[in-house]
């Protein structure tokens, strides 16, 4: 089922459809001329009885209705044929033709950077894995937002999560595809979507772990290792498909920056409670970046007294 329907069947575009409309047009024109003649005839014979007058009008009305009906049928048939030609989901069918073992293999491969960058690496143009990974990322993001009591002022929690993930996947893919076009890289849009989608696997793992275990240092380790590995893989594949040092630098630098920064953004924008928990957990050992005002009673009292005196003097 559906094996042959992915190909657009040009035999559908037979010429009878056009000519039937022309026939309809001619018919309609002829009907109009007949009506005009009859109208002139009626105007001349306006003194005739009402019955005959109504009879002729009734006959014309019936013909008119039949013509309109025929036109409607033909138009509907044309519209449904055009619809089934363009709005066919069979267009997407080849991109979902995968086996579970293939998906698993590709997921694992997305974490392993390739070594051979001298000849173009193969990218599977498949959309099932990336789509599922984006939805998984949405689910993980929702979990993180909820456990951190993130307050979304404009919009909803779900809408923000879906918008962020899909926006990143589609937007950054399109942007990198555009850059690839400028830098003469050999990659198609579907391949780019697939590559970036599988690159989100690292993001999923990192966020899944760090949204549940709240340690800053653990997040940074995961960010560098897991995020770095998946970015390296994408970069290596792109490098293998681009010629020229400047082009390679531009393309891969942009992709690496965007990919790593996105992970950083996802962690910090939607996980505000990390700070609070960290303070309670690491009480006696102060993290290096925290500045706590040390309260030395003697100094603070002296400061208070001199300030009071200064204020009293000025008043």
């Amino acid at each position, binding site marked *: *089922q*559906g094996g*042959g*329907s992915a190909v657009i*069947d040009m*035999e*559908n575009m*037979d010429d*009878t*459809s056009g000519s*039937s409309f022309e*026939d*309809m047009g001619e*018919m309609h024109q002829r009907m109009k001329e007949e009506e005009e003649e009859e109208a002139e005839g009626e105007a001349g014979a306006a003194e005739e009885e009402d019955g005959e007058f109504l009879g002729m009008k009734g006959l014309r009305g019936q013909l008119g209705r*039949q013509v309109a009906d*025929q036109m409607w049928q*033909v138009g509907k*048939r044309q519209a449904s044929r055009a619809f089934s030609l363009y709005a066919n*989901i069979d267009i*997407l*069918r080849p991109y*979902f033709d*995968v*086996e*579970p073992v293939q*998906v698993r293999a590709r997921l694992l491969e997305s974490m392993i950077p390739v070594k051979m960058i001298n000849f173009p690496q193969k990218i599977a143009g498949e959309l*099932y894995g990336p*789509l*599922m990974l984006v*939805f*998984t990322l949405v*689910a993980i993001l*929702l*979990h993180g937002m*909820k456990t951190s*009591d*993130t*307050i*979304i*002022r404009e919009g*909803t*929690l*779900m*809408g923000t999560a879906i918008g962020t993930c899909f926006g990143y996947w589609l937007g950054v893919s399109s942007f990198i595809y555009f850059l690839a076009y400028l830098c003469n890289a050999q990659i198609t849009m579907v391949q780019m979507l697939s590559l970036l989608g599988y690159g989100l696997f690292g993001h999923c793992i990192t966020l899944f772990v760090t949204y549940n275990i709240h340690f800053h240092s653990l997040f940074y380790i995961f960010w560098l290792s897991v995020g770095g590995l998946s970015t390296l893989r994408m970069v290596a594949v792109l490098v293998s498909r681009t010629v020229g040092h400047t082009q390679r630098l531009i393309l891969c630098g942009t992709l690496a920056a965007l990919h790593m920064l996105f992970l950083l953004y996802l962690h910090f924008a939607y996980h505000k409670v990390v700070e609070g928990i960290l303070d309670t957990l690491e009480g006696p050992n102060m993290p290096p970046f925290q500045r706590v005002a040390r309260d030395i009673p003697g100094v603070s009292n002296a400061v208070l007294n001199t300030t009071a005196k200064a204020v009293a003097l000025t008043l």
Partner: protein
Amino acid sequence: FAGLADVSISEDIPVEGEITVPVGSRSPDEDYSTLDEPVRDTIMRDLKAVGKKFVHVMYPKKSSALLRDWDLWGPLVLCVSLALMLQGGSADSKDDGGPQFAEVFVIIWFGAVVITLNSKLLGGTISFFQSLCVLGYCVLPLTVAMLVCRLVLLAGSGTVSFVIRLIVVIAMFGWSTLASTAFLADSQPPNRKALVVYPIFLFYFVISWMILTFTPQ
């Protein structure tokens, strides 16, 4: 008009689709005798059909009743009741943390549509509305879980209640996924069942997550 009637379709176009007509059609155009029956009979017949499908979901056997005569009344009722029950969580307008009615509604229907499209693209033989029907009816265990959670939350909202809610929601989530898999997996090629089950798992996981994290004001 003989020449106009000759708009023929070529024989090479593959004909595909669902030819099955829902058994027991209730449309008055085809069965004139149902026009004259009292309204109570019509409503009771529809309610019985919906109730029978509920029973099929709670005890998932390999029957095709859910698939043969699909209807979307049950999913609508379940979706609306679930969305209403998830409403009381954010009465405070400043803290908009809970899902709105429209959000839940859209998530359920949009999620079901995506899963259906996915299963069709993977080579499934089930029709669009049949799949929507099955996915919608299998939300029933989760609606029951929501009811139980609300009752438990009335008693208190400590750790014990959280553990109870967690167990109930996980059990119902497993039940939903198993029920829908029992109906939908048969329509797939045998080696791709896992590819179809995963989105269903994710879909019910998101709904269960919404139920579990519901906290009334």
